[in-house]
């Protein structure tokens, strides 16, 4: 249950919630599930009838995502949704990236995990603002959770917001959070055929980071094959090879970040 307003189903908890305020206007909290009988019917006749709905299953999420995107655009915030399987090194990549950039840029982080605040604690140790969302049994973050997290986190204008999604290469692909880009992180300790096995995720991502390349001498991983598979699923995907641990390749990632940030700032001015 969402701790802000109790409006979301499931076991989501968002850290540090103080207010009940929404930055979008389309959100209402009627909790009347209409348990009464359907409209009057003649006795003895079946009450069954057909209802045409034609509604996308993710329409509600997509509406929140669109609200989030407007918010990011209005405030010039570059938001990146980091997705990967568990253990690819997302949090380490984040802490190293923050160490490189925090003197020049405002950075904040939303951490998604099923349980614990370990990752948010690691991020906060670097000195930037971080908020943990525990999804309970949920396997991904959704746009509604992000909208609530924004109320608490309040990322600075013209800043970068990283969203570290729950480690899972399946469900997060379907849930738009309003981010500018999905960044898929794959490590060389996994199979090079991950892009083919989980094509939806690599199709949805604009950048693939191949992490832990310092381990290549010790593992059986075919980099060229992996890149070919990723391009086969998504010909537009950009690929950066790096090691968050050794620092190799980090400058290419920072370049990509700066370029994306410049794009996000094109239609933003502080006075807007």
């Amino acid at each position, binding site marked *: 249950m969402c701790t802000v307003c109790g409006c979301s*189903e499931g076991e989501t908890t968002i850290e540090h919630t103080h207010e009940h305020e929404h930055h979008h206007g389309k959100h209402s909290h009627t909790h009347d*599930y209409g*348990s009464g009988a359907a409209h009057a019917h003649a006795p003895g006749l079946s009450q069954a009838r*057909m209802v045409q709905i034609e509604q*996308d*299953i993710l329409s509600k999420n997509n509406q929140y995502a669109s609200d989030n995107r407007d918010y990011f655009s209005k405030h010039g915030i570059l938001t990146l949704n980091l997705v990967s399987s568990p253990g690819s090194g997302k949090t380490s990549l984040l802490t190293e990236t923050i160490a490189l950039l925090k003197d020049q840029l405002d950075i904040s982080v939303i951490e998604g995990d099923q349980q614990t605040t370990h990752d948010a604690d690691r991020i906060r140790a670097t000195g930037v603002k971080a908020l943990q969302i525990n999804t309970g*049994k949920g396997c991904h973050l959704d746009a509604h959770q992000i909208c609530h997290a924004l109320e608490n986190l309040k990322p600075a204008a013209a800043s970068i917001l990283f969203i570290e999604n729950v480690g899972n290469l399946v469900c997060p692909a379907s849930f738009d959070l309003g981010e500018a880009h999905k960044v898929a992180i794959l490590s060389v300790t996994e199979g090079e055929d991950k892009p083919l096995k989980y094509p939806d995720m690599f199709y949805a991502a604009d950048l693939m980071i191949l992490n832990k390349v310092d381990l290549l001498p010790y593992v059986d991983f075919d980099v060229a094959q992996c890149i070919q598979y990723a391009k*086969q699923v998504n010909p537009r995907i950009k690929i950066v090879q790096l090691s968050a641990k050794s620092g190799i390749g980090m400058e290419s990632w920072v370049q990509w970040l700066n370029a994306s940030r410049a794009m996000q700032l094109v239609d933003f001015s502080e006075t807007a």
Partner: protein
Amino acid sequence: MSLCESVLEILEQQSRQQHYSKVSRVWLEIGALSSVEPDAMRFCFDAVMQGSLAENARLEIVTVRGQAWCLQCNKNVLIEQRYDTCPACGGFQLQVNDGEQMRIKELEVE
């Protein structure tokens, strides 16, 4: 699982607008290129609907084939996977235009 929860949310929301208290059948239109595995969807559907207004509802999945426009052949072609090449020319220049949907089409309600 979460997709089924979204379906249930929509069913509950619609029950207020369309005035029904029980759902006995749900038709979903699922594209072959969406990230939905129909068997997993069926399994989760029954679990998620338990104790709700759609308990024991039948799930009907209408599959829509993947279709893309081939820039080289200048026509629509059928594809099974995102990484398929054009079945006519073998090219990669495909723009998917059908088969990505995940949609609730119709309900039988009381």
